[in-house]
């Protein structure tokens, strides 16, 4: 049984490289969580990467022909094909004897719904790509229609009256079932944690998956100034949990670890803030039934307990 990979020393915010490869004056909404996310992903990739991006908010961030907002080689692709096209880029480079970090970056729609077949196939084959899902919890680019990742109770353009009736799809569990080398979750409210995870994933080969809870002011309906606050609230209530799952070999057991703020909360034995604090802060949950909130709280609690139980390093 091989040794678990050593922990990389956490990077301080002050030491994160200053170079910006996401250029200002792009088409993201004011206060867009993805803007913060992408800045740090680019810093961690340090310029040496090829991005593969399907139809999504990110496509629009990238700009409209003939002007680009990103100083990174970038391939736009069809909605379902992110993982497969990225696998093709990686295969092409390998065939040519070249190497670059291939990053497939899609939204929750392009990952959990229309893109899941390609992602599952790529993960099963352990394609050499870093897959990043920025999860703003709905099809935001087309006007906030519900996705598989939309949380229960959220009102969206296609769940306008009753709110989403189902829980969000658990992409971490799905990726775990594929036994990929590295799974992590992150949030732009904790950019150092996000930066380190992308850096670590970049240093690995095989399929790596990072799921980033990305607050969206117009879609979740909160003030444009509250984006970072909303991410913190997500983590403090356990709606989002910062974690890493590493599996050095497919047959080796996975090492599960809470990170950042989630780790701090767990180590202190702190209670999570009530989920309702997170729900009440966003108009998309207005009108959510008490029973739904109870169900969601129950699920959050159970998951938090399970995660703490899995982390042998606490």
């Amino acid at each position: 049984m091989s040794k678990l990979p050593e922990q990389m020393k956490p990077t301080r915010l002050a030491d994160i490289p200053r170079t910006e490869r996401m250029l200002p004056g792009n088409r993201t909404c004011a206060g867009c969580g993805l803007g913060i996310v992408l800045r740090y992903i680019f810093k961690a990739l340090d310029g040496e990467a090829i991005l593969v991006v399907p139809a999504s908010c990110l496509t629009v961030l990238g700009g409209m022909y003939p002007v680009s907002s990103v100083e990174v080689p970038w391939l736009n692709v069809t909605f379902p094909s992110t993982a497969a096209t990225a696998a093709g880029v990686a295969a092409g480079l390998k065939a040519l004897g070249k190497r670059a970090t291939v990053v497939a970056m899609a939204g929750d729609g392009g990952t959990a719904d229309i893109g899941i077949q390609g992602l599952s196939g790529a993960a099963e084959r352990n394609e050499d790509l870093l897959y990043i899902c920025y999860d703003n919890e709905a099809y935001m680019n087309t006007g906030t229609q519900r996705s598989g990742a939309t949380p229960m109770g959220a009102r969206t353009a296609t769940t306008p009256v009753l709110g989403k009736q189902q829980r969000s799809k658990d992409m971490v569990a799905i990726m775990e079932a594929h036994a990929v080398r590295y799974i992590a979750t992150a949030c732009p409210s904790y950019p150092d944690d996000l930066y380190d995870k992308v850096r670590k994933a970049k240093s690995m080969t095989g399929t790596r998956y990072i799921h980033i809870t990305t607050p969206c002011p117009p879609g979740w309906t909160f003030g444009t100034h509250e984006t970072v606050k909303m991410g913190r609230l997500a983590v403090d209530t356990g709606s989002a949990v910062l974690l890493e799952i590493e599996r050095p070999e497919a047959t080796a057991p996975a090492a599960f670890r809470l990170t950042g703020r989630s780790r701090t909360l767990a180590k202190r034995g702190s209670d999570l803030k009530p989920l309702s604090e997170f729900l009440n802060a966003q108009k998309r949950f207005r009108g959510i039934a008490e029973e739904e909130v109870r169900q969601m709280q129950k699920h959050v609690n159970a998951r938090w307990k399970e995660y703490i139980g899995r982390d042998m390093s606490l």
Partner: protein
Amino acid sequence: MAVPKTNTDILTGNEAMAVGAKLCRVQVVAAYPITPQSQVTENLSQFVESGKLKAQYITVESEHSALSVCIGASTVGARAFTATSANGLAYMCELIHWAAGARLPIVMGCVNRAMAAPWSVLNDQQDSMSQRDAGWIQIYARNNQEIIDTLIQAYRIAEQLYVPVMVCYDGYILSHTVMPVNVPSQKDVDKFLPAYVPHTILKTADPRNINQVTLADPRNDATGVLCHGYMELRYLLAEAFQKAPDVIRRVDEEYGKTFRRCWGGMTWAYRDEDAEVLLTAAGSIASEATVAVDALRAQGVKAGVRAVRVYRPFPAKELAEHMNRAKLVCVFDKSLSYGYQGPICADVKAALYASAERPAVHGFVAGLGGRDVKARELVEAVKQSVADYDRGVTDKETGWINCQI
């Protein structure tokens, strides 16, 4: 002149395609099995896993992913290959459009098979014909030798024009039938096929954003250069199709010089020099038509074949030139544009529209869902057409060959 070293093997159409891809030194293969194409994928797996072909073989989980992989690979400069049939082709449809608009020289084998519903694994040409508007060059092979030769030519054509190419051949009739095939030598193919030089730029030093959302009108880039709108970019693809016939002919001629075989460029003919009635079709049914022509001639009908080898770009001028010398053209389509006519028939009529003197055109649908097409059925159809023509019927409803309704 020294005869190039070749070896003659007995190969199915699928084997011919796989061997051709190996000779082309394809670098990335991604293909999903589907009857009657599966042996292409299996043979290529065999070549790759045994080291005979140095390529990255991605055993994708769907056809949509197969062509996506090829798009990714081709964009970074690797020679990419895939193959499929019917519903598999339909599944990758949006990527077919994408590859064309992205100007990627991918070559795909399409083993022609009927579209569901209902299910049929047998041959007709509805699958590739349904994709004829997407912006791929389409070449239809009439026998297994042509499959391997056309595949080699296809990479040369694709990489010169930056247009993807579909090499089509009839499922089972060719894919599973063994025929003698001269397999060109690797050395000669290497000489014939230069390395692929991508037009796409994907490098850190010059970071490009490729195939972004494009607006309707031309727009300045950041340096003030007026760049294309969507329509102009699509015009460039259309322009490539205007140049394509010359490129296709030249490549076929050059192939002929190197390998002692060429296939007629855009169209091919059999006993058409003095023909009064021409049989027109694409693929193996055109081969069958040559048998019909011999029978018709024996019965005193001055028949000939003028077959479509390249369906897109459509060889309108070339066909018109040849067809205007005849009185009657019988077009046999193995597909139908529902609500109208067989695709080849409609295109032939359009090609002849501008001619002052043009033949009558009678269209037929044949062989759907693997319905066997016999030469004698073609003979009967032509004889009936001739009789109708003699009675003054220049235009008639699409005939259905051996449809037992």
